[in-house]
């Protein structure tokens, strides 16, 4: 079960503003997802190494060689409010 407080906590971490209805829906939906995932806990994993990657590879590395970067205009194309070559965003300091 997931509590209302946890929904609000996660929303705050993600800077999401939720309406009361959304909180109620998410409480229910997140609970059912977690309950589902919880079923994994029934499996006996005694002696099984934790798996962080499913592919049996190691040390996939890249040489330290520069590749062309994006043209700045292109880099800023998706920015909603570019300013003097930078991504302008609402100040996180101003956030409550």
């Amino acid at each position, binding site marked *: 079960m997931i509590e209302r407080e946890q929904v609000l906590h996660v929303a705050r971490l993600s800077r999401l503003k939720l309406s009361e209805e959304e909180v109620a829906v998410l409480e229910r939906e997140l609970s059912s997802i977690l309950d589902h995932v919880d079923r994994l806990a029934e499996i006996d994993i005694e002696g099984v190494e934790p798996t*962080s*990657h499913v592919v049996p590879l190691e040390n*996939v590395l890249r040489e330290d060689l520069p*590749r062309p970067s994006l043209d700045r205009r292109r880099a800023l194309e998706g920015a909603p409010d570019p300013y003097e*070559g*930078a991504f*302008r965003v609402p100040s996180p300091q101003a956030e409550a």
Partner: protein
Amino acid sequence: MTGTGELEAVIGLEIHVQLSTRTKMFCGCELSFGDQPNVHTCPVCLAHPGVLPVPNRKAIEYALLIAAALECEVAPRSIFHRKNYFYPDSPKAYQISQFDIPIAGAGRLGDVRIHRVHLEEDAAKMIHVGESGRIQGSDASLVDFNRGGTPLVEIVTEPDLRSGAQVREWGQLLRATIKQLGVSDVNMEEGSLRCDANVSVRPSGSDRLGTKTEMKNMNSFRFIERGIEAEIARQKEVIASGGKVVQETLHFDPSTSELHSLRSKEEAHDYRYMPEPDLVPIAPTRAMLDAAAGALPELPAGRSRRYREDLAVSDSAALQLSFEVEWAEFFEGVIAHDTEIEPRAAANWVTGEFAAELRKQGDQGLSETRVTPDALGALVKLVGSKRISHASAKDVLAEMVAEGADPLEVVEERGLEQISDSGELEAIVATAIDENPKPAEQVRSGNEKAIGALVGAVMKATQGRADGGEVTRLLRRDLGL
């Protein structure tokens, strides 16, 4: 807390080192400093959908080199994690870092144990325009992703430090060590080496840790020393007055020496780490480990030990020489001039008179000076063999620094060789006593300090060409001491 016993400070450090690779940690964008904003970005470091990070081999090698220098144990297999946080300096809304299995741990540098060494990526640079006043009345921030994704090695110490001064000294040793490895510029002002300190106090001798505060991002070890001292004093006062230290993040303002509490990011530590599914583990091969061990140069701590133990160099000169590899090389050049040169004396000349003369004459760096190690070696030998006096040697040195002069030529031209004829010197000493009856009488009646005036008179008469020790000996003899 009884409040009566002595309190001791307990300090641990977290040091971030920007690696001086050519490209970023997970993409091929070039590293830069001071370029126009956002000219070194790509879909990977801007976190466009569907991109995949690929670790920079050089960054892994540099991390292994740091681990070797800090005598760490390298993890046979380490993985990357996502450290989730929501802030505009991280376009992915997470930083790729390492969590429970860092690349290395359990090391040591000097008398401080290293807890862990891990790899991560730097965040983008933010300019809060409202504060800087670039945009009147604005509360916007500008984000520059050039720095975003720069490879970082984070070094975390055990809480083994006890004072601000110790932090400064150890920090300088760490900085010199990393610099020697050639893996970072370690420029604190430009942020390529950043240091956070966790500070707490506890009753002396206790093995429990008090509540700590974190001091963020101070850009010189002098400031760090002062900031930590201020914070230790504050915490001791809080406890002495019956209060409790509150866990918080502090900023030290070196211009006012004041500590400010940074508004604590609520739930700042809820990073919801998860293994980074886009990156496979790092399992350093024998070849990679051997390469790191083989590439280790002589490091400051070892060099300082060698100078002290094998060459009998004084502690302070050994430290000074060890921290800057150019100075160490210069010193070794000086003693290479002649086997008769005493390394201890040479080290004192290099770090003392020579360094002072460079500062005096236009604050020259070692790379700018026209004095070669060989020439300074010749000078040190002239003093060591008593062919010229210490006073004359200083004059010669000034000329060498000013004009790149050859010490032997200067000595010859100016006739600075010490008076080796004892009859000549005895005559001068006798004259000095005759001409300075007052100090002579004082010395005779037991005021030994007054002999300085007579030594000065002899030096003046000989234009510094007399051996001070010999002059004092003759004066004492003639004055019946």
